[in-house]
């Protein structure tokens, strides 16, 4: 008889999983929104990442973000496909920039700044993978301004949404 395998999970794990599930829900929701250009997406799931970052710290945000990328790729069926690596590189770059952004003055720079910086890092990471691996052609430079404008717009909007959430009184998880 096989010994039963029991994973010890803490309440923190459960909490992170709930947050990642919320982010995942937003990812699925967003996949239904038609996009004029592949790659231009609102990135609503990042609202969750920003809130987790502000409330529970960078480690929790990294867990939620990467879990969302993993689970999302399984859900959408592109695990280890190019789309997965694009998501992953974007998420990793965003997290690195978010880690650095914690050193900015909290009084001056809020969630909106973090959101915009992360959005730009996201697109930079993705374009790096696209250029170095998928389409090594200088022609993709033509798309950069469009992606940058999208990053600015959606980064700002997501940041405002996250800031609104954070300014409302915390609800118990």
């Amino acid at each position: 008889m096989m010994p039963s395998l029991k994973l010890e999970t803490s309440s923190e794990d459960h909490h992170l999983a709930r947050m990642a599930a919320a982010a995942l829900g937003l990812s699925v929701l967003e996949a239904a929104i038609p996009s004029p250009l592949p790659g231009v997406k609102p990135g609503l799931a990042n609202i969750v990442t920003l809130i987790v970052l502000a409330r529970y710290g960078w480690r929790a945000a990294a867990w939620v973000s990467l879990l969302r990328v993993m689970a999302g790729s399984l859900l959408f069926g592109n695990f280890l496909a190019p789309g997965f690596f694009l998501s992953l590189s974007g998420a990793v770059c965003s997290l690195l920039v978010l880690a650095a952004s914690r050193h900015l003055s909290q009084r001056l720079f809020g969630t909106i700044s973090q959101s915009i910086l992360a959005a730009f890092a996201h697109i930079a990471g993705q374009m790096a993978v696209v250029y170095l691996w998928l389409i090594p052609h200088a022609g993709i430079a033509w798309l950069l301004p469009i992606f940058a404008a999208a990053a600015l717009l959606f980064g700002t909007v997501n940041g405002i949404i996250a800031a609104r959430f954070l300014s409302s009184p915390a609800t118990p998880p």
Partner: protein
Amino acid sequence: MLNAIRPGDWLTMLAGGAVTVWLMSVCWNGGAADRAIVRSGGKVFRELPLSPDSQLHVPGPLGISVITIHDRQARIESDPSPRQYCVRQGWLKQAGEIAICLPNEISVELAGRTKNYDSLNY
């Protein structure tokens, strides 16, 4: 809604906008030109580098056209064509710019490293 935006956030937005505009100016221009292609009668007569400064005399059916390269710009300095359109066009600066002297069948086009498609021909 606006009270959630901190002073630095405006700064970040401004910086993001600046980066976007900068990318537009870099990525959406023909790019820096590095040579001038001189055509006569539809055939490439000579390709000139944009530096050093130089001058080229190109024979056409009406006479000689003079092409001048100065300070990484090119122009047709003189031309025997009656209406002088190509001369009055002045200096060509960016890749993709072209001056054509139809009567004398001569043209000067600036080209960069990557040649852009000509929307008139494609």
